[in-house]
């Protein structure tokens, strides 16, 4: 009876999204699938079954292949990014949760949460080159843009492990605040940004000294401290702003990189988990784990412009230009 007709609304939204056409893939932990989303139209295109409990998701540097860590099947699957046909299984080791791809050679570094180790995989040969022991429950993992370092965060040992890529050796550990779950390098490879879920904190590590050089404790007006659990984070390519997903606080913090202050808190869906940039970095996409949707954020206006239902328990995102 009460049909609401959107006359100008859709037009207003299309006007609001000025980005390039691209596709966003979202891993759905409970649906055993990935969602394929058109962010320009602001809609879910389809859902493709991939295996049990998909979490980590990333595209190859040429965006031709999509890799999905299918945790409960203990493999990483390789798909054609255009057709989403399955091409190969990569031997990832036990319970692969997240992984990182090298920007230059075809190496993949996988966090094996149950085995407390990092598996190094030759993507073309589909073989495990080596396994590197790290702390308990490794989760967040990143490769430096200059391909010199791999960093891994152990969420129970509360450490960031520094691994040299030339010989796959762990050379240093940095003690950080409790439950570090995600980390990322800055574009110049000089800093590693790490989030501590339990301390509600962001830490900036110097890649040279391997020490914490700056910290930021998050506060959200009207939200209790225990709900502020920072997880996924990104620093933009110009190193002007960083974005941190604050989990059950349902916010993304926008951070000024120069002085490490929060510029704005953006309200998104429930338990925002991971985030991804659009190819041109004009937009940010967030996977909202408990409200089963993803939000689209206009980074020029710093506004959440739309949230789209994608499926049960969205976890990670990958953006194909």
């Amino acid at each position, binding site marked *: *009876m*009460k*049909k*609401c*007709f*959107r*006359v*100008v*609304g859709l*037009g*207003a*939204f299309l006007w*609001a999204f000025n980005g390039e056409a691209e596709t966003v893939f979202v891993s759905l932990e409970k649906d055993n699938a990935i969602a394929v989303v058109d962010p320009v139209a*602001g809609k879910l295109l389809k859902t493709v079954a991939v295996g049990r409990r998909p979490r980590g998701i990333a595209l190859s540097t040429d965006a031709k292949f999509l890799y999905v860590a299918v945790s409960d099947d203990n493999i990483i699957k390789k798909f054609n990014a255009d057709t989403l046909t399955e091409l190969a299984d990569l031997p990832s080791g036990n319970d692969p949760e997240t992984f990182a791809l090298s920007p230059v050679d075809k190496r993949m570094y996988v966090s094996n949460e149950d085995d407390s180790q990092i598996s190094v995989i030759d993507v073309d040969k589909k073989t495990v080159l080596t396994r590197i022991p790290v702390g308990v429950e490794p989760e967040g993992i990143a490769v430096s843009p200059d391909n010199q370092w791999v960093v891994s965060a152990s969420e129970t040992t509360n450490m960031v492990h520094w691994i040299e890529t030339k010989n796959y050796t762990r050379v240093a550990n940095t003690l950080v605040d409790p439950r570090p779950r995600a980390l990322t390098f800055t574009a110049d490879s000089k800093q590693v940004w790490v989030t501590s879920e339990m301390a509600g904190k962001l830490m900036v590590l110097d890649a040279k000294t391997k020490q914490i050089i700056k910290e930021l404790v998050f506060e959200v*007006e*009207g*939200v209790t401290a225990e709900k502020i659990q920072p997880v996924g984070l990104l620093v933009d390519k110009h190193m002007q702003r960083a974005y941190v997903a604050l989990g059950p606080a*349902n916010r993304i913090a926008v951070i000024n990189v120069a002085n490490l202050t929060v510029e704005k808190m953006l*309200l*998104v*869906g*429930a338990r925002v988990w991971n985030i991804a940039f659009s190819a041109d970095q004009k937009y940010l996409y967030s996977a909202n784990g408990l*409200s089963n*949707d993803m*939000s*689209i954020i206009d980074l020029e206006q710093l506004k*959440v*412009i*739309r*949230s789209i239902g994608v499926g049960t328990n969205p976890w990670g995102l990958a953006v194909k230009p």
Partner: protein
Amino acid sequence: MSLTHYMRAMLGIIGRELWRFITQRERFISALVRPLVWLFVFAAGFRAALGLAIAPPYDTYILYEVYITPGLCGMIQLFNGMQSSLSMVYDREMGSMRLLMVAPLPRWFLLLSKLLAGTGVSILQVYVFLLIAYMYEIEAPWQGYFLLLPALMLTGLMLGALGLLLSSFIKQLENFAGVMNFVIFPMFFMSTALYPLWKLKESSKILYALASYNPFSQAVELIRFALYGQLNHYALAYTLVTFILFSSIAIVGYSPSKGMMARKGIG
């Protein structure tokens, strides 16, 4: 009687009302303070209590302040409508209403002019309120601020007509407290101004039904959708029908031969 006479009379009534509003600085400030207190105090306290759900016209999650802003626009118009009715009772007591009513123009036209005058004042108040809200980062798409104008015209007329209708029943100024208790508060609280319908449905089906059929709810929804560049056809039709109904009864109520005024010996 020429069209010029009609226009002159209408502009005279609107001008008088606007002049009264502008010169009465306390009235202007108090009209703004009420919704601002709700926005900055009440909404801030309830920020986390609303829960999450995306419902039209919103495309994403919103803070509670954002949700109640259209409701507070409606509140401004509701209070203004009642204020107009208060001024009608006052005018009647003071005798200036008699002067107006004996003007050589149809009574329905004079009452409609009075309604338009009140609506104009309420629209001014709403835009000033939205400007303050904008500075508090409660922003709507820019098109919404233009599309809001016709919506506010209709909702202002409907709520003004309701006030007019009530004023035809009230004999003395003192009875206005009853209007506050029995009309304004129930209308405001049993509406979608403070909580969405789905939230009311969770707590009480009766409340949900009352809120659904409350004309104030539909006025608020019309404002809400317009502010976000959308048209809610149901709310538009509902508000239009209730406006016609209320204004017709009010015109009959003010008719010296048939209405309540005849029974009260006024007119």
